[in-house]
């Protein structure tokens, strides 16, 4: 019997058996809504140098037309102007995103390209502001941004903040961090140094790329949209979160309402009370 001649129930059953035997994923439900969540703590520091923000969510067309944007920045600790750099970068990203996605002349621009342009803008704003104050290359920030547009995710990231995708109880990191440790690991892979040397190097965590350099340097981003399913969560966080909590601990909190989940993640960071706890910030986009 041909599949199109089968009664509906039998056809459904047959298709399911086909799918099972081929181990294809169930037809994933489309994303119809995005819910934000966020929280932060100053930790044991004197100043909050993390910043974050969301584009306007709620308008019906934001998911299907402009996309929903989340941005997170971690001003560079120990540097002057760290707090301002983070806020400037986030604000520039939000303003430029709204302007560009709302403008008719950019209506055909792929969102990856929008992200690239607004990141360039944020970079030059931070660099110029610092330069005018005689602080060029002494101020900077990490910057991580994610956009959910229709059923796809786009991201862009510079520095060592992280973006995770939480799906089916699995937490997967989307970006690579721009730290010297990556270069050390590459050298170890090619046997120029040993793995032990790479691990023990004192500059492992030094940033190799950040916002506030004369030009964008290393940038992590996707070139094709990552297909999303209802139930996926996107989690942006500063290193103050992932250095305090293990992947397992983070996963445990990712249930229920994203706003509450963000709060409980940060509460867990505070409860750990690590000596010298860095600023910690989390921003969530939960797809429904």
């Amino acid at each position, binding site marked *: 019997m041909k599949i199109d001649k089968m009664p509906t129930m039998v056809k459904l059953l047959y298709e399911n058996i086909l799918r099972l035997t*081929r*181990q*294809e*994923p169930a037809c994933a439900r489309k994303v119809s809504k995005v819910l934000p969540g966020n929280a932060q703590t100053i930790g044991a520091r004197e100043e909050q140098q993390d910043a974050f923000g969301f584009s306007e969510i709620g308008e019906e067309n934001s998911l299907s037309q402009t996309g929903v944007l989340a941005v997170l920045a971690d001003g560079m600790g120990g540097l002057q102007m760290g707090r301002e750099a983070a806020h400037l970068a986030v604000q520039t990203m939000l303003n430029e995103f709204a302007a560009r996605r709302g403008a008719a002349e950019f209506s055909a621009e792929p969102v990856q390209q929008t992200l690239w342009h607004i990141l360039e803008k944020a970079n030059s704003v931070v660099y110029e502001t610092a330069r005018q104050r005689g602080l060029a290359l002494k101020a900077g920030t990490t910057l991580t941004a994610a956009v959910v547009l229709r059923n*796809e995710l786009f991201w862009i990231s510079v520095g060592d903040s992280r973006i995770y*995708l939480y*799906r*089916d109880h*699995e937490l*997967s990191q*989307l970006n*690579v961090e721009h730290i010297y440790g*990556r270069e050390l*690991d590459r050298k170890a*892979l090619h046997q120029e140094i040993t*793995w032990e040397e790479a*691990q023990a190097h004192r500059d492992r965590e030094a940033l190799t790329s950040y916002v506030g350099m004369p030009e964008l340097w290393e940038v*992590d*981003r*996707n*070139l*094709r*949209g*990552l*297909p999303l399913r209802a139930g996926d969560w996107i989690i942006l966080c500063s290193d103050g979160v992932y250095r305090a909590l293990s992947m397992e601990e983070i996963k445990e909190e990712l249930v229920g309402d994203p706003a509450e989940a963000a709060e409980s993640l940060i509460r867990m960071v505070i409860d750990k009370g690590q000596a010298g706890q860095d600023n910690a910030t989390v921003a969530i986009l939960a797809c429904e």
Partner: protein
Amino acid sequence: MKFQTATLSRNGGRRDNEDYIVYKEEEGYTCWVVADGLGGHPGGALASRVVAEEIVKRFFLTRRIDVASIRLYMKTAHEILVQQQEAEGLVQSYKTTVVALFTDGKNMRWGHVGDSRIYRIHRGSVVYQSRDHSVPQLMVDAGELKPGEIRFHEDRNRLLRVFGMRGDLQPEVDKELTPALKGDAYLLCTDGFWEYVTETEMEIDFAKAASPEEWLAYMEERLLQRVQLQARRGFDNYSAIGIFC
């Protein structure tokens, strides 16, 4: 259809690399093979090379991608391996898994034996992955285990079918012919690779990659990080072929 191919094969934490990868393109016909030799030095490395090369050779003699032909390439390779074992009196010591992908430029078909895998990415998502011929896969089929839990199962290395085993070999060849579509990607890899890279991560790194070389490089970085968190010494060889259509 033009294909971009990248390959990767490394010792991992072992002295010898018993994996073997090969691909060949000729007049629009292409065949990609990944094999994971078993049984230790020197049998494993020999088995994976002999079988993979034999499959490529057989394919280019007829250039057919129907189910029967692909089964025949594999069965012939198996018999040649068994003969070689017998000639050298090393019965049962030459074994290998294989996953192989064939195309006539318009359509693709694949086959495998053992726990080396093929994944197909379509519109950015993993839409197909092969089923291992292993004990934990049987448990998945029986509903006792989730597919993702195969990675950590204690019986993960217990294979039910391998080249070089006693008796008749039943290669599994996909019954459906899959069109070669621009934008699709394929990943062929040994268990030393897929053990440390999840399907979601394959999708993530595909979304980032401008070329199959980049795709494999991103995934290898994850693999090495994960291995570092566990024991560095003694981890398996790992090999992969990435194909962009």
